[in-house]
């Protein structure tokens, strides 16, 4: 295993990590403040990618397309909140899971009807489409660095909003004890609507940023949604800090083990053919094992918000 590959895969892991963080941030807040399981959060990510695929060629500018995509993602999020989610806050998790599962089926098929089942490509902005030399003989695409950079910037921004502003204070208070916040005269429903719409927009942002390096296709959010759930469960539901650390952890572990599990197993003394068979399986299971282990020792995650 060469150090070049290690550097590149670490960066790839970081990139997956920040994308996961963008998705998990909204999920964990919605979860934390309203105790609401939103399985449909992954389709918001997919929607962001599709909206970028539509608006970027339409406007001829990535930035303009991105802004339009984000605005639309926000609107769709608010619309879903009003039409579906709102009726489910007081219900069991079971009914929330079921309703948002239905929403996934509907939206995945809906994008297929609107944009077709074939994968779409999104051009990346010209200025950021090159590669950059990050070490001796190691070239890395600028756009992937831009994803990492923008994700970290959003993380810092979110941290500032959550810890320094009044809205952030209400969100934190809501995650800790929602009925108390409500009793103090805060319109918790409106707070939640804001959080929900904002979370949807963040997931959409992740999708739009990832669109140029991935193929945009129906169901692309499903697997990431599951990963995002793993992230917030590891991090502790309702905690932004937990989501951030969990996301980077999951992104790095998943990416690094996918490229190095076979080598590691061979170092561990397995025969090459056995290592090749078992390696990929262990790599794809690793984060679930990580999550099961975390839950076994800390049943409410690493940084529980309620306490």
């Amino acid at each position, binding site marked *: 295993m060469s150090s070049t590959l290690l550097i590149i895969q670490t960066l790839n892991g970081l990139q997956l990590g920040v994308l996961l963080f963008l998705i998990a941030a909204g999920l964990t807040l919605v*979860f934390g403040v309203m105790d609401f*399981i939103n*399985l449909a959060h992954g389709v918001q990510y997919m929607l962001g990618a599709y909206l970028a695929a539509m608006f970027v060629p339409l406007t001829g500018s990535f930035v303009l397309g991105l802004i339009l995509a984000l605005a639309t993602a926000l609107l769709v999020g608010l619309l879903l909140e009003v039409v*579906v989610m709102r*009726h*489910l806050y007081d*219900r069991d*998790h*079971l*009914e*929330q*899971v*079921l*309703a948002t*599962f*239905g*929403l*996934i*089926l*509907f*939206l*995945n*098929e*809906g994008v*297929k*009807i609107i944009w077709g089942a074939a994968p779409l490509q999104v051009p990346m902005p010209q200025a950021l489409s090159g590669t950059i030399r990050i070490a001796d003989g190691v070239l890395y695409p600028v756009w992937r660095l831009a994803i990492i950079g923008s994700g970290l910037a959003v993380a810092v921004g979110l941290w500032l909003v959550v810890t320094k502003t009044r809205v952030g204070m209400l969100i934190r208070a809501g995650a800790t004890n929602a009925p108390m916040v409500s009793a103090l005269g805060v319109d918790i429903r409106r707070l939640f609507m804001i959080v929900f719409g904002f979370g949807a927009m963040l997931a959409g942002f992740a999708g739009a940023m990832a669109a140029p390096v991935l193929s945009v296709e129906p169901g692309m959010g*499903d697997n990431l949604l*599951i990963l995002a*759930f*793993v992230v917030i*469960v590891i991090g502790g*539901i309702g905690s932004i800090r937990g989501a951030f650390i969990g996301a980077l952890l999951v992104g790095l572990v998943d990416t690094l083990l996918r490229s190095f599990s076979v080598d590691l197993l061979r170092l561990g003394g397995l025969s090459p053919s056995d290592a090749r*068979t*078992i390696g*990929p*399986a262990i790599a*794809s*299971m690793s984060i*679930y*094992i990580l*999550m*099961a282990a975390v*839950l*076994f020792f800390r*049943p*409410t995650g690493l940084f529980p918000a309620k306490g």
Partner: protein
Amino acid sequence: MAETPVPPVMPAAPPLWRRIWLPVLVFALLAIVPLIWGERFILGLVTRAMIMAIAALSLDLILGYGALVSFGHAAFLGIGAYAVAILFSHDIVDASIAFPVAILAGALFALVTGAISLKTRGVYFIMITLAFGQMALFTATSLSAYGGDDGLRMFHRSEVFGSRLLANDTTFYFVVLGTLLGCFLLLKAIVASRFGRVLRGAKENERRMRALGFDPFLYRLAAYVLAGAICALAGALFANLGMFVAPAYMTWQRSGEFIAMVVLGGMGTLIGPIIGGIGVTLVEEWLAQITQHWKVIFGPMVILVAIFARGGIVKLLTRGDR
């Protein structure tokens, strides 16, 4: 999750109509289907629907009676199916060996994953069962010796003590129907037993059950293992139906469908999930015939069920009785 106070009354027994006549009606209808529609397609479709009903039935034991929302139940279906197909590929084709192995495999997976999952509650339980389901899925995709992503084909159905009894579609239909009936009666007896009452008691008020000296964990684990075993049996039948297994049998979407079947039919009624399982399978097939984009219709139906149909079809049918 705060424990909600429960009024100290025993829930009334379900009305006679639901307890006796509805199941009789459902099974009688299923029994005459092959006599009315003998076509292969219909037989195969209803057989598939009944297998899904067995799986949904097993989920109802933990979901309806234990309030344990398992989002990884499809794993057991896949494990049962793979057990049969893998043994088949090693020339062990007799159901008398393959089916018990499938059931044991399901039970064993349930025992291990249940022992870990049941330490958690609520949302965390949903997520950890989902994680175990995903693990099973990825294990199946990495079984390159057994087809990997592409799945594994069986050349014929399992033999029964050396005879190709199940090769006949009508015979297979009645075997599945008999299994469904057997599982239904078994679970009915179990939920009515002391074990079932403890399970329900732990769902209503865990602290009180503890105070009475019961360990809810052990009862839940036993129920989880039993549900896993029955679902694996459904998987063994499922492998035989199409003579094919694939990792796609255990996606989390299928686990979601199972939940939809149970809730749509009526949680904690046993007969409800059977109706739900058959109903959902038939509706999916019917919608798929109308349009390839049937999910845009099915999705909103699921949403409406979640929002409005509290108690499911069975409660709608017997409205006013309770």
